[in-house]
């Protein structure tokens, strides 16, 4: 099963490699990993998507918690949460395909953030599944480049 694990960790050099190293050393799988500082500049927020059965996910959470730099670990999937991912897609556009592509962008609430003579750069945000669906909706031969941020998320409760 797919799990979203959210970490708060000390914003120190090497903290990211400790987490990444843990996953590779113990053979845990990472689907995506995002990291950035939070409103407290001494803390970073890291969001990891991993796929595994419950035992594996429990081990991942425990092993992460054991890392000295990790302040807090939450398995977002185990609680009410919001997840978002953003994708930038560069799409080949010509007069014959433009209408079709515009329709899909509209349908997924996408934004055209850059236009050149024969390309669009489109931004779509939402749950990962929505991003997947959008990408599938576009004729694969027209997709020139895809850059996804990976998932970030928060727990819905005020305090958790």
């Amino acid at each position: 099963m797919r799990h979203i694990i959210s970490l708060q960790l000390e914003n120190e050099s090497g903290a990211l490699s400790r987490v990444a190293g843990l996953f590779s050393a113990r053979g845990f799988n990472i689907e995506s990993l995002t990291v950035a500082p939070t409103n407290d500049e001494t803390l970073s927020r890291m969001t990891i998507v991993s796929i595994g059965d419950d035992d594996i996910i429990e081990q991942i959470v425990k092993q992460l918690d054991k890392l000295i730099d990790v302040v807090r670990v939450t398995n977002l999937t185990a609680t009410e949460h919001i997840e978002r991912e953003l994708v930038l897609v560069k799409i080949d556009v010509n007069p014959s395909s433009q209408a079709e592509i515009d329709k899909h962008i509209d349908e997924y609430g996408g934004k055209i953030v850059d236009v050149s003579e024969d390309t669009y750069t489109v931004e779509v945000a939402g749950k990962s599944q929505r991003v997947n669906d959008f990408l599938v909706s576009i004729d694969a031969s027209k997709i020139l480049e895809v850059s996804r941020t990976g998932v970030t998320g928060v727990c819905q409760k005020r305090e958790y």
Partner: protein
Amino acid sequence: MKLNGAQILVNSLKSEGIDHIFGYPGGAVLHIYDALNVCDEIKHILVRHEQGAVHAADGYARVSGKCGVALVTSGPGLTNAVTGIATAYMDSIPMVVISGQVSSAVIGNDAFQEVDAVGITRSCVKHNFLVTDINDLANVVKKAFHIATTGRPGPVLIDITKDTTIIEREFAGYPESINMRSYQPEIKVEADQITKAVALITQAKKPIIYSGGGSVIGNADKILRLFTRHTGFPITQTLMGLGAYPASDKQALGMLGMHGTYEANMAMHDSDCIIAVGARFDDRITGNLDKFCPYAKIIHIDIDPSSVGKTVGVDVPIIGQVNDALSALMQALKGKELADISQWWAQIETWRSVDSMAYKTKAGVIKPQSVIEALYEVTKGEAIVTSDVGQHQMWAAQYYPFDKPRRWINSGGLGTMGFGLPAAMGAKLAAPEMDVACVTGEGSIQMMLQELSTMLQYNTPVKIINLNNGYLGMVRQWQEFFYDKRYSMSYMDALPDFVKLAESYGHIGIKVEKEADLKPALIEAFKQKDKTVFLDILTDPSENVFPMIPSGAGHHEMLLAGRDEMASTNDEGLNLV
């Protein structure tokens, strides 16, 4: 007071109460050595190889219960230390390793003797630090000792750039305490879990206590004894746990696992309630997980939550220090009746009567088991015994019953050949009044021979018991069993004359070739209180370690000496090491 970084470091170590450092100098740590040179409170032991420094600090820590400290230079100094660090990590030994690093200005430029120390050691330390700012130094040292010695202990590396050791700063003093929001090692035992555990314990008809290294590291031997006596339950101990409960006691079933006793493994297999105390269900203990303890409810006490449920599902996890957990259990058991387990004991006695540790003697050859038995006799069971890794390690664990903790010092987790000799040196420095024996083999001893020189320089008299069978015995045993006797590279030709070798290092060497000479030689060796004695004992080259659970088998599928001379395994078993 203005001090340079090196002086701040040495001051910090003094404040931590460090009295011994094991190390080796080099370019990046010259300032640190300069500061150490004028420090009378800390004795520096100059080893001959950095791996030896870390193993010696490790042995010192295991015997004394204090934090071991090693100091090495950058580059090869650090890479040589890595095996020692990984050894300490696998066995949860409190240790701080300080390594020099090239100057901040050249870091990342592939400078002379530069390696990414923090990167290389990341997966084999509890935590590590790179210090590039002198203002952080004292705090980092404080944090390092705090992390190394609390919770589940482990090695912490402090990598210090050379410029940090040179710059001068006003030094306000070593911090008295440290608070880290991301590291809260004190875990209180949950009352709910104790209640659940008591319910299982009181109903258990076939209970067994399975105690591991956590009982030794957590200094829980006294409470473990009380708990075991109070419940009347049988107890088995892991290789790392030996000594926490007296092996000579009638409730003790001996070691469990791959080379454990028949009674211990059969009792584990048939048990309905296992109380795991500071043990981690590793593969040498469990054998085939599918066949592991099929009837038991499992209570697992451990300070490290990630140890719980890692390989084996647990019914009642109790997270906390062994001392706290067992005290809480004792308290909760007061006035409670336990189930009658006399039938269980009767069953255990029938297993015990199999006498699985019996071995056949052969005229004209020295059996390695008999050497350990003689060692036990001559030292009256009161020595500290370190070991290397291989058959001799198993025989030492099997035939030297330890009645006290911190007497049996071996590399259980990583299985590091070369550990025994430097660990013995560290052990002797930690307990100068005790006899220290290093049980080794001609393979292992040659991995750290150079430390014989250090042992002369610092007068750390140790008795080296070299079980010399001319083979890498454990490799040979597996090749005999599982590779149709194809002895690939397990025979050691061109061995040195160990007697002359010991003598050339300034020690005493004695060769023992006949059974009759064995005990007199041991007595003579231990009479030499102030000398290191190398006993080169020629033992039966064909002897195998029994009993044995072959890889892939369950606890109830043990092979016994004299009854099952040949073991076999399956593909699944061969995949395990």
